[in-house]
């Protein structure tokens, strides 16, 4: 079998970072697909970018800021309306482990 670009263990590590439970079949498929994609993006290494700066954003320079004013009305019920589970005005979640 041809060696894939990334290992299954790497796929699992990335899935842990991304908090995605993957089935073994998904892990294997993603190993192949991610490997293919990484092979494809290798073409970027044909370009010499030593003296090229990165572009993170393409908007105009300068940032819109806001006054330090409280503009939002308190609307707890509306903000909690989509809560999958709540306890009074708290969002309720399963026990937190570190």
């Amino acid at each position, binding site marked *: 079998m041809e060696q894939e670009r990334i290992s299954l263990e790497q796929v699992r590590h990335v899935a842990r970072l991304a908090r995605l439970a993957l089935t073994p079949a998904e892990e294997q498929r993603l190993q192949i697909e991610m490997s293919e994609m990484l092979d494809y993006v290798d073409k970027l290494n044909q370009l010499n970018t030593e003296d090229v700066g990165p572009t993170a954003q393409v908007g105009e320079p300068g940032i819109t*800021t*806001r006054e*330090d004013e409280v*503009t939002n009305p*308190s*609307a707890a019920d509306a903000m909690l309306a989509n809560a999958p589970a709540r306890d009074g*005005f708290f969002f*309720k979640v399963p026990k*937190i482990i570190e």
Partner: protein
Amino acid sequence: MNSDSYEAVIGLEVHAHMLTRSKLFCGCAADFGAAPNHNVCPICMGMPGVLPVLNRHVLELAIRTGLAAHSRIEPHSTFARKSYFYPDLPKGYQISQYDQPLCRGGYVELPPREGSEPRRIRLVRIHLEEDAGKNIHSENASLVDFNRSGVPLMEIVSEPDIRSPEEAVDYLRELRGILVAVGASDGKMEEGSLRCDVNVSVRPRGTSELGVKTEIKNLNSFRFVEKAIVYEVKRQIEELSAGRRIPQETHLWDPEREVTRPMRSKEFANDYRYFPEPDLPPVLVAPDLVESIAAAMPELPAQKREKYGRDFGLSSYEVGVLLGRDDLGDYFAAVLAAGVNAKAAANWVMTEVLRAANESGKPLAQAVPPPQQTGELLRMVEQSRISLNAAKNAFAAMCRSGNTAEATVLELGLAQVSDEAAIAEVCDRVLAAEGAKLAEYRAGRDKLYGFFVGAVMKAMGAKANPKVVNEVLRRKLAG
């Protein structure tokens, strides 16, 4: 090796809640104490599609802090996303500053301790970031409140320049003084306005290589910072002395048992996958903005200390005591404002006021009279209306009763008699009654002078002005 052959190397990361009306990126109230999830909106709850917009005032407060700490204000800084999952982190990332912070470098100068030189603790950086919400853990579920989510924080990172637990506290105290002076924070550590992460390592004295550090997270009082460092330094020295190695770990301070203990280690805990925040363009700070902020800087703690020393003739020790506590410093300033001699006011505040506050165990404002009344009392001493001793008695009474100086002095009959005629009359009476002693004195027994003073004072119920008594008595004794 014993513990003296090691030195501690300490760096502090302080997170300060900034004093703003609204949150960092949305128009929700930033104050505390609201019912759970009452200060939230789609933005600080990380709903789909929302975007952050930077609170302009936060920028100004951070620049003021940077200037106060002699930092370089970067003309171009950026925000970044720091990714991790936790229920109180609504977006799954924190908007923070990473490789391009708002302020770099600078230092905090510590006031000299007795017998030591002033020290500078260098800063690495000051940056802006948003706070997370709060989880309340219970038996088999947790509750989440996002009121704190998005509240602006300033993170101030020091170089590992600190060498002792005491110095760490001095640094924190000074930093807090700066933050409060520039209006960036209320400085209330107990209320969580300042949180501190401490990096501690030890190394053999005389070496310069850094040891492996332990990070102690989330210390929220000066006392805990000091205790945690003392504990951790001792622990590390013991480990090293026993030939063991210090693993790089993150610890939590357990205030109950007064120990630090390692957090459960997550193998991938540190891969935060920082990348530039695409929703916020770079922050461009024009030189004239920095200049205008610099031109309107408030008085900083170091400047105040210098002024106190210079204008009031106080020693650096006295200045240190007075300004070492915000409440004491404020009290002193208010007594001064009542028009009292600075030296006298300083002595009084450092002794009587501090003692009364310490003995009562109550906050200063509740333990002692309002500073205007203390000022009033000290003015009576200056004007010789009462004696210093009488003032002490009156002060004690005022602490208990809450009455004014005037009323207390009157009630206790402490007013001093300075009327020369009245004092002369008593002197005449005393001398007449003590004819034998008078003769001895006049024959050269100078030592008896004190006897006559005592007798006059006693006859006047200790209310006579000693200065006037002296004058009159000397005249009369001379015959």
